[in-house]
């Protein structure tokens, strides 16, 4: 959904032509909930499992089947992705196996997914709001001329069976619930870590429906020349960390950031930051937490010198336990933190790091010393 600068937020406009939930006949046979299983370089992105968990609930409410869609080259990784889709709750899997789908490229993936949808007609199609998922979802929705709701934080089905997709807007200050009328499938993307990870089961592989892709390499303009993995660089694993230490402008200087990094190192946490630190160039963009950064879902989030603006809040609310350290007892972060420490983070972080170090097992302390 896009809201143009000057236009009021569209209100419920019951009776307006655009609001009628009357589905054209040719869409009435669209059934089942699909989750696109994102596989890149052999690995399934965990957001796909989170989506299967959410898709399961929607499918059960609608009384339909849940399917995982796997696009990839012939080989073990693709087969494994299918097995995983079943383990995380899929009833059916759709598979397009083709060497053209080795690395992600927009053209063959769009074509393969669009063809599958046109042939098997799902009523709901969910993708992760990753760089791959957003790239693909936009092309598929435009090709199919259907609605797509980005970065949803909540999905549900209405009494009449339509998908109610809720997403933040205006940098997180508001939420809106969006419907796709008169078109199918109803498409949505969901950011990693927004939905809970479902239980993995040992369900055996079920029904796999294979489909071809009508394309040859010569028709594909994009060629992949190479890939540099973040593993060789300093990029973060923030989204999946169990413990995260976040630093904000309250730390005062880029030099002081090491206080947060130190604590993170000692307790085996990842570190991240609020947006101004990225804007000042103190931290790389992939360490930013929040609406325009990463969503985190750790067991513990320690926020030091962060005010708790709404855009930061929406990225951390999924944390089980939020500890805030801030000099201002009225800082907005105390409205959603569970435990607050009203003190100077610059002095407190080293003390906290020390006490944690004393509590660590001798073994971990030795490791840290090296």
């Amino acid at each position: 959904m896009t809201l143009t600068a000057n236009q009021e937020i569209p209100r419920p406009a019951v009776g307006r032509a655009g609001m009628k939930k009357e589905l054209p006949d040719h869409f009435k046979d669209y059934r089942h909930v699909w989750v696109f299983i994102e596989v890149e370089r052999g690995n399934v992105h965990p957001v796909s499992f989170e989506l299967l968990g959410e898709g399961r609930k929607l499918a059960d409410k609608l009384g339909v089947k849940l399917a995982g869609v796997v696009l990839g080259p012939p080989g073990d990784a693709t087969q494994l992705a299918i097995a995983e889709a079943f383990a995380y709750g899929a009833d059916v899997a759709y598979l397009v196996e083709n060497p053209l789908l080795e690395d992600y490229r927009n053209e063959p993936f769009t074509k393969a997914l669009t063809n599958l949808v046109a042939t098997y007609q799902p009523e709901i199609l969910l993708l992760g709001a990753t760089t791959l998922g957003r790239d693909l979802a936009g092309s598929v929705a435009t090709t199919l001329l259907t609605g797509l709701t980005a970065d949803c934080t909540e999905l549900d089905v209405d009494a009449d069976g339509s998908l109610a997709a809720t997403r933040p807007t205006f940098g997180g200050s508001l939420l809106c619930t969006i419907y796709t009328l008169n078109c199918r499938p109803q498409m949505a993307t969901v950011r990693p870590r927004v939905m809970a990870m479902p239980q993995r089961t040992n369900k055996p592989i079920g029904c796999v429906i294979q489909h071809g892709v009508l394309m040859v390499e010569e028709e594909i303009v994009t060629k992949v020349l190479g890939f540099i993995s973040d593993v060789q660089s300093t990029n973060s694993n923030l989204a999946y960390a169990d413990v995260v230490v976040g630093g904000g402008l309250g730390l005062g200087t880029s030099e002081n950031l090491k206080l947060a990094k130190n604590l993170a190192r000692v307790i085996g946490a990842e570190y991240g930051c609020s947006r101004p630190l990225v804007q000042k160039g103190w931290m790389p963009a992939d360490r930013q937490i929040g609406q325009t950064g990463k969503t985190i879902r750790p067991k513990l989030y320690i926020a030091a010198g962060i005010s708790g603006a709404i855009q930061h809040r929406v990225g951390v609310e999924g944390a089980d336990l939020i500890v805030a350290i801030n000099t201002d007892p009225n800082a907005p972060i105390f409205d959603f933190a569970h435990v607050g420490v009203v003190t100077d983070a610059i002095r407190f972080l080293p003390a906290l790091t020390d006490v944690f170090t004393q509590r660590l097992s001798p073994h971990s302390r030795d490791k840290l010393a090296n």
Partner: protein
Amino acid sequence: MHVVVCIKQVPDSAQIRVHPVTNTIMRQGVPTIINPYDLFALEEALRLRDVHGGEVTVLTMGPPMAEDSLRKALTYGADRAVLLTDRYFAGSDTLATSFALSQAIAKIGETFGAPDIVFTGKQTIDGDTAQVGPGIAKRLDLLQLTYVSKICSLDLDAREIKVDRRSEGGTQMLHGRLPCLITMLEGTNEIRRGSLDDALRAARSQIVKWSAGDAGIEDLSKCGLRGSPTVVKRVFAPTVRTEKAEQITTTDKALGDLADELIVEIFARQPALEHELAFDASA
């Protein structure tokens, strides 16, 4: 060469307030800015023009006041500005927006020369969808390169382009062909201060203003609310948890004792963490 950059005028959302009772956005007095992500696209376009020659056209769809953003883009050094404005566009979702913009880009191509590259920002700060770029690409059947962090090379004669593209867990190096649509990643460059010449030229420039009809859009049912399959049914403020954080205050305590107290509190609330902390360190 000819580069078209799509920009959007957005409310400076850092300054937006939500009305506590009606849950609506209070826009009065909220300044508008060019969507910050679009500035990276604009700068990249200007750099390509500076190296390869040619022209940069900026395009926006919006209300008449969006002209301000276009003029601003001219002061940065864009050569031409097109404002697509018509009440038929009101209420457009991303599908309808990409339709209108793609029609305008086609018209720009007919009028001023076919674009070699169309740029957009990664996403907007008000809609946050990252869908309009891919939508335009699909509508115009352009090769789509999203989340581009670097344009490594551009060969106009061979019609070839090489880019780095951000993906999950790494950077993809891609080779593609012109014409293409690029959505630019943030932080890739820094928007220039326009020159005095540019400022003077911007002040004098005529902004091309097109209605739906001017842009050659015949099928108005694809525009605005009617052309938007998605409809916003409910707008509401996020639920605010009412109980505040349990605060531990310092004044009379040594920092070490305070740290102790905090750690006890953390483990009381999350017992499992006691064994998991320093997981990496003890691995």
